[in-house]
């Protein structure tokens, strides 16, 4: 093969990149668009929100959607659209930090458990068994009940409840990878465990972990807003979607829009993460496609 033909031949047979494969999936693109729009709304909240989200206007309580308040006002006269825009900032912040916590603890534990096996595996797996005995929302609820309500504790509670799924997933992937010939070859040439873990194992578990992390973002948003709905999440007057929905429920007979729009925002955010997660899964490993 001549050197000038080498590039064209390899590029002809090269598998399209993950981003390109993701780009081809319209559903995943819709998800990317939803998340990008919500993230942008959150970042630009001080500029684009028409009103102060916590400022009460008791002369205009429970107004239905109208030109001055496109999504209406709540029981304290606060503009629902502004609160939803600011709520995007908070919900995404909680989701990313909680899943970050789950990743930071779950992936290393899963790698150690899968790669070293033995006692480390036994201890980690029993820990996972115990954590999985608690339904994840119940685990988060119990932690918040004991730690107290508030932003930090919600992030901690939701983050801790995502740890076991990351441990299980990473361990499973490592168990397969560690039996591969290239790992055996690396060991045969005297490569140390640390180098094998960072150079060979970690990059190869990234794909399933990224998919799981994206899907977990949706679950984290659902859980955090569920806690808010029960009054055990971020406390008023902070605009948080779940808490807004919880408060709006009291006015479901007279002003149903107060509960409808925050719920729609939660649904859209979770849908966005699920679409991106499903798209990433199909792009990274089409064999895993479910629906």
């Amino acid at each position: 093969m001549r050197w000038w033909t080498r590039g064209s031949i390899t590029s002809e047979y090269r598998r399209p990149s993950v981003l390109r494969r993701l780009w081809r999936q319209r559903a995943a693109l819709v998800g990317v668009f939803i998340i990008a729009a919500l993230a942008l709304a959150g970042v630009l909240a001080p500029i684009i929100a028409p009103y102060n989200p916590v400022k009460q206007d008791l002369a205009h309580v429970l107004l239905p959607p109208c030109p001055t308040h496109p999504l209406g006002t709540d029981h304290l006269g606060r503009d629902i659209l502004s609160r939803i825009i600011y709520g995007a900032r908070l919900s995404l912040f909680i989701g990313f930090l909680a899943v970050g916590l789950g990743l930071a603890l779950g992936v290393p534990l899963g790698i150690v458990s899968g790669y070293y096996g033995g006692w480390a595996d036994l201890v980690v797996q029993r820990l996972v068994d115990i954590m999985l005995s608690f339904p994840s929302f119940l685990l988060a609820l119990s932690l918040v009940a004991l730690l107290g309500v508030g932003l930090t504790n919600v992030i901690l509670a939701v983050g801790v409840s995502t740890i076991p799924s990351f441990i299980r997933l990473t361990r499973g992937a490592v168990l397969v990878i560690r039996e591969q010939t290239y790992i055996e070859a690396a060991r045969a040439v005297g490569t140390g465990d640390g180098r094998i873990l960072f150079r060979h194992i970690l990059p190869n578990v990234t794909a399933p972990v990224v998919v799981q992390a994206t899907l977990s973002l949706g679950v984290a948003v659902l859980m955090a807003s569920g806690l808010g709905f029960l009054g055990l999440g971020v406390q008023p007057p902070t605009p948080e979607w779940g808490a807004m929905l919880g408060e709006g429920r009291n006015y479901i007979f007279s002003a149903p829009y107060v509960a409808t729009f925050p719920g729609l925002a939660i649904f859209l955010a979770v849908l966005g993460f699920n679409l991106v997660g499903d798209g990433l899964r199909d792009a990274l490993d089409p064999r895993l496609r479910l629906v």
Partner: protein
Amino acid sequence: MAGIGTYLVRRLGATLVALLGVSTIVFLMVRVLPGDPARVIAGLLASEEEVARIRTQLGLDLPLHLQYVRFLGALLRGDLGRSARTFEPVTLEIMHRLPNTVLLAISSSLLAAVLGIGAGALAATHANTVLDYTISTVVLFGISMPVYWLGTMLILLFSIKLRWLPAAGAEGPTSLILPTVTLASFSVALVARMTRSSMLEVMRSDYILTARAKGLPEHRVIRIHGIRNALIPVITVVGLQFGNLLGGAVLTESVFGWPGMGLLLVESIFSRDYPMVQGIVLVFAFLVAAVNLVVDLAYALVDPRIHYV
């Protein structure tokens, strides 16, 4: 079926270890995490004597290892302590609410199984058609929808606008409909996904090809060979979903004022009734462990390809 006895003993052992771990964590949660439960129960304005009295009453003044031994001993006798709010035995209050939660969980599981398997099988047999895409979209919506929002919207439509069904409470069979549909929504979607993927896999198997080659009509191929074999992993998903269902029950019961353990848990958290919270969390965890054990054993019995190692 050589080795099933060993598998049974091993699986039972693992469950017992997990339950001991769960009990230990619940015990430690209340005692080790920041905050004094006695002070929390007594309230901020209570005197030191009052706090000390509650601490003695709950046994919190004893060394931790003694508290643990007492806790485990009581647990083995089915004694979960007394409610800090009503002073009634926790076990009694839980037993009073448990049937309602179990009823809701079972009705939702059944609905999820029937609708999910039906929708999944339909999507698989019509793969890559408009019907398949429609079902897939509905499934995705079901997975993404917060149960507490869906419940609120169902109340708005069926109780407020149409006045067909009661909005809250547990009076008569009609009051079970909306909570069941709400709680089942997520599981329906998940079961449909699993059924579709499992069935597509099964329909590519050699024995399906053989059945078709024998001249068996397509509906019989699907019914006898397709769905039956595809259902094995789906049964596991339905069982394992039980934990999530109990988590969702807390929210669903709160939306509909359904008098189950989930609502009791939320009420107990707000009234800082730690013995009750501890008891309910333990019962929930024990239920999940028991259902997981039954599902695992059923799976091992149903699928002859599983080796008991």
